[in-house]
């Protein structure tokens, strides 16, 4: 349903690597757009307030001290959600990869669960769990779980069978096979899954916050919209964009570090 597999994101990744070379000239249209907007935009416009009015709008009416806690809330929900999705996704992915029977048993159930749009899960989650942090994290986990699970399970299935046979003939314990052989060899697949899951987790965090008005940047955007503060809405959109840029480059940095270490190992 969502961006789940390696093949789906491959072109954009290649793209990203090329952009760095000619990145600054590429900002031209955006700068132009914002400049024109600034020149002809009325700061009081109910639809398109000039960009210069965005930043001050964050601090009007004593709302300035809400921003940092909201960002921290969003980051925490996102982080815990991604962590939960990673643990659950890796555990389930390993089980499915190792045991075909288990994979076949849970297959249809998971396919169905994966197809549910996260936005549609939100009302159900609020009804069953209430409006709190747990509910937010559960929704994020349910949405971000799938790329990690799928990449882990196919990572295990693609392993050379000799690897596990060797572990067996060395009579390694299950724990040692798991942590010494299995996990290190599927690590690249897991990291790839986590990278795909990261933007999903952030988007879903913002979505849940917006829909339920429970803390975070998403809730602030919703509040600004309901109280008709367009400049504030745009300012918060910009903050969400920055957050997303930071998070995505952070994950890419970690992924590169993991890959470099593996190359160094060999």
């Amino acid at each position: 349903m969502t961006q789940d597999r390696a093949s789906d994101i491959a072109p954009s990744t290649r793209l990203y690597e090329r952009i760095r070379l000619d990145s600054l000239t590429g900002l031209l249209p955006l700068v132009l757009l914002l400049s024109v907007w600034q020149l002809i935009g009325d700061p009081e416009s109910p639809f398109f307030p000039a960009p210069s009015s965005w930043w001050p709008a964050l601090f009007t009416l004593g709302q300035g001290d809400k921003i940092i806690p909201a960002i921290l809330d969003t980051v925490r929900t996102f982080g815990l959600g991604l962590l939960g999705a990673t643990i659950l996704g890796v555990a389930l992915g390993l089980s499915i990869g190792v045991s075909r029977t288990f994979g076949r048993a849970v297959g249809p159930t998971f396919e169905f669960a994966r197809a549910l749009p996260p936005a549609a899960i939100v009302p159900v989650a609020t009804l069953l769990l209430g409006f709190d942090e747990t509910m937010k994290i559960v929704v994020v986990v349910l949405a971000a779980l799938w790329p990690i699970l799928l990449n882990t399970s196919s990572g295990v299935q693609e392993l050379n069978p000799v690897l596990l046979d060797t572990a067996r003939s060395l009579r390694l314990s299950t724990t040692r096979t798991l942590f010494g052989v299995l996990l290190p060899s599927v690590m690249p697949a897991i990291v790839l899954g986590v990278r795909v899951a990261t933007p999903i987790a952030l988007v879903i965090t913002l979505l849940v916050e917006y829909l339920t008005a429970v803390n975070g940047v998403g809730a602030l955007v919703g509040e600004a919209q309901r109280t008709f503060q367009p400049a504030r809405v745009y300012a918060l959109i910009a903050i969400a964009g920055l957050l997303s840029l930071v998070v995505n480059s952070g994950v890419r940095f970690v992924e590169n570090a993991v890959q470099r270490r593996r190359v160094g190992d060999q």
Partner: protein
Amino acid sequence: MGRNEGLNRRNPSNPLGVLVLVAIAGIWEVLVRFSIADVQFLPAPSEIAAAAQGEIFGGELVGRLIHTVGVTALGWGIASVIGVGLGLLLGLSPTAYRYSMTSFEVTRAIPPITFVPAALLIFGFSLKMELVLVIYGGIWPVLINTIGGVRSIAPELRDVGTMLRLSTPETIRKIVLPAAMPSVVVGLRLGLSLCLVLAVVAEMVGNPEGLGNGLIRARQALQPALMFVYVIAAGLLGVALNAGLRATARAFLPGNALKDVSAS
């Protein structure tokens, strides 16, 4: 077992898996019926089935479904045309790429979800708001995958076009598009599911129609069974749209595009 496979695509008939699904529903039913799991507002599967029957034959489900499908399809169609067109331009022209790509990357980083409040302020609670949002979100995957597909075409292939003295439109139609098609189709598929998600979100908070609104209505009326009906309908719709697109691509696209689509 390729990475592009789903959980178990190769064997469509999977009695064990279906059995597990049925067992889960059965246990859920028993737990709720005998109040073993005392979760407030959790309807039993039988109640959901009854609510589904009522909503399909006497209620609003079909009308809402048609609305959501219509907006998703229309928005996705428009988004795809814009995305492929812009993607061809940026993929083929190094100048256009150099002087705009970063802007697109920066804009793309902003989650489309956060534009929902802005769209609400600008367009109000209307169909226009829903459609604009669906189009905006749907453009990105198509655009990015078209650019990626076009830029990774082997230079030799384009040289063939030059050698045959094909005009630019001919080159695009006969060489560039077919070669980039597998990547474009991936973008189209991702775009379609994103369009559906955005349509449902827009209906939940803005345009008071469609599946999303049905979901919110059921939530507000404290009818959990009905709410589950809409959740399941939205999920099934996603599966159906995706399957439909895959079947269409398989029927109309030759060779290697087909392989890529059916695998994912």
